[in-house]
């Protein structure tokens, strides 16, 4: 009898305790995240962006968000290449260039057609076709590079892989830049606008339709990429290979196929960024150098092989450049990020997000 009276009270307190621990762990998780290096930096970035926007005007926030998305796309591709295949890609800017070049050549006839038929639906869809063409062209180029260069190196020599790949990508970059100059010439090949519509006012700033579209393309791609990596079988195999190549082979994943897929994705993303930004960066041989540096800044900032971290990293670097441009003047935006990167490499070489991802290199 006595035990029956005691039991309910024990149960209740136990339930309370369970509820408390669940609440605690969630709150604790948030608090721990906010006070981690990543949390502090992200919160600080948002804070700085808001303060600067109030001080200098909302264009800072708007510019950051629009360019940040594209740099993030580039960095995601680069990061993926590093975490899956351990390739430090210094030819990534050239895929950006190839993407913009393809988009330019596809956009030429479309632009002519829409001049004659301004009411046709091509006005809306045409630019998308050009951007998609740039993306697919680069994906194909990436696969060709993998088959012709990196696969051959893999078969023949696995020693000093990281350094060899670094040198090879620099060579590739030189070849592609000069190839562009040889075939298409060194002049600027650009367009005035993709979507020739009046600018849209956002927070009192007039933003061209192209920039708005570029932002939405970047955002949709990032969401799509995340979904692909987390929920599709193909994405899971890429993650599996990046975490344990041998293990992936043991469960029957063809590592070769994953490498092709990684290269296609990574180069395709660079091509997408290049094609979507054609209205800002006309295509010429060395157009990819600046985006390449930006994506390397991002990767160093967030830590090697941290694919998800590239997204906040992209916005941080973009904010940093917008800020230096508006507070120190044009030209400084290349100097101050380099200073920041040097400081990070000295004091926190694993990046602010201190990645726990084990790449093939560490194994």
């Amino acid at each position: 009898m006595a035990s029956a009276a005691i039991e309910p009270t024990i149960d209740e307190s136990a339930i309370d305790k369970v509820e408390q621990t669940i609440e605690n762990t969630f709150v604790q998780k948030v608090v721990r995240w906010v006070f981690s290096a990543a949390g502090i930096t992200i919160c600080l970035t948002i804070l700085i962006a808001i303060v600067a926007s109030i001080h200098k005007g909302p264009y800072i926030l708007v510019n950051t968000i629009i360019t940040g998305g594209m740099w993030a796309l580039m960095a995601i591709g680069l990061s993926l290449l590093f975490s899956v295949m351990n390739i430090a890609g210094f030819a990534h800017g050239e895929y950006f260039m190839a993407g913009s070049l393809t988009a330019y050549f596809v956009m030429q006839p479309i632009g002519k057609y829409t001049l004659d038929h301004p009411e046709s639906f091509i006005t809306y869809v045409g630019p998308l076709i050009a951007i998609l063409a740039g993306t697919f062209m680069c994906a194909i180029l990436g696969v060709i590079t993998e088959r012709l260069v990196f696969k051959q190196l893999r078969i023949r020599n696995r020693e000093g892989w990281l350094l060899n790949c670094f040198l090879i990508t620099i060579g590739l970059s030189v070849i592609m830049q000069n190839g562009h100059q040889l075939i298409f010439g060194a002049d600027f090949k650009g367009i005035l606008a993709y979507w020739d519509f009046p600018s849209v006012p956002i927070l009192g700033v007039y933003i061209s339709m192209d920039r708005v579209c570029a932002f939405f393309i970047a955002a949709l791609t990032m969401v799509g990429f995340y979904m692909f990596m987390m929920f599709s079988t193909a994405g899971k195999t890429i993650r599996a290979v990046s975490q344990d190549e041998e293990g992936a082979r043991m469960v029957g994943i063809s590592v070769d196929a994953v490498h092709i897929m990684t290269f296609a994705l990574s180069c395709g993303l660079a091509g997408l960024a290049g094609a979507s930004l054609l209205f800002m960066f006309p295509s010429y041989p060395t157009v990819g150098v600046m985006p390449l540096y930006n994506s390397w800044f991002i990767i160093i900032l967030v830590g090697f092989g941290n694919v998800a971290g590239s997204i906040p990293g992209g916005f941080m670097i973009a904010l940093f450049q917008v800020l230096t441009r508006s507070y120190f003047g044009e030209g400084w935006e290349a100097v101050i990020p380099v200073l920041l990167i040097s400081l990070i490499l000295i004091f926190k070489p694993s990046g602010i997000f201190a990645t726990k991802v084990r790449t093939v290199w560490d194994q």
Partner: protein
Amino acid sequence: MLLEIKSLDSGYGFLQVLWDISLSVDEGEFVALIGPNGAGKSTTLKTISGLLPPQGGEILFAGDSIGGMEGHLVCRKGVAFISEELNLFVNMTVKENLEMGAFTVEDSAKQKENLEFVYELFPRLYERENQYAGTLSGGERKMMAIGRGIMSSPRLMLVDEPSLGLAPMLTNEVFKSLRTLNKRGTTILLVEQNVGKTLKTSSRAYILEKGKIVLDGKSADLANDDHVRKIYLGH
């Protein structure tokens, strides 16, 4: 014969580890491969599973030659390899790891059935379903690796030192699960250093020393063999 190895040579580059190894495993058997450190036990399993190309000899699986075939194709044939270092996907959850294990199984009903069987065999994994594999304890990782192997419904399972670094109680549990698996019809080739327990569990055994097979026979006979008793069992 499910697995037949004929005068296999294997090794790493210039370093030859296995010399003229011949062994065979019949369907449904539980065969052990025992020997001291550095005898080439793990190398044998790696060569069978296609992670290491053989330097000579023949490997036949269910009548087909699989020597020199790439690892992922060997897996598709029905060979699951549970390596010593386990090779888990540490940044994926337990469930995702198991799902990756069933990568070669196309039938989703079969996948589900395998998953249920793994959870039944290792209830601990079910409890930790959504935990990252990297946060599991040593014993749980072993279960995870074996579970991942089961997910591909293999005909032959190669298990490399499941008792390594485990407490005796957990070792018993792992051995018990291997026996359950064997009873369910999976053929097992087990590599072990824990000779006493292995000879009690397996039906047949090979003894590998310095890259050569020196003895083979029924486990019960080997346990009474003078050489084995002196060197491995210590009495």
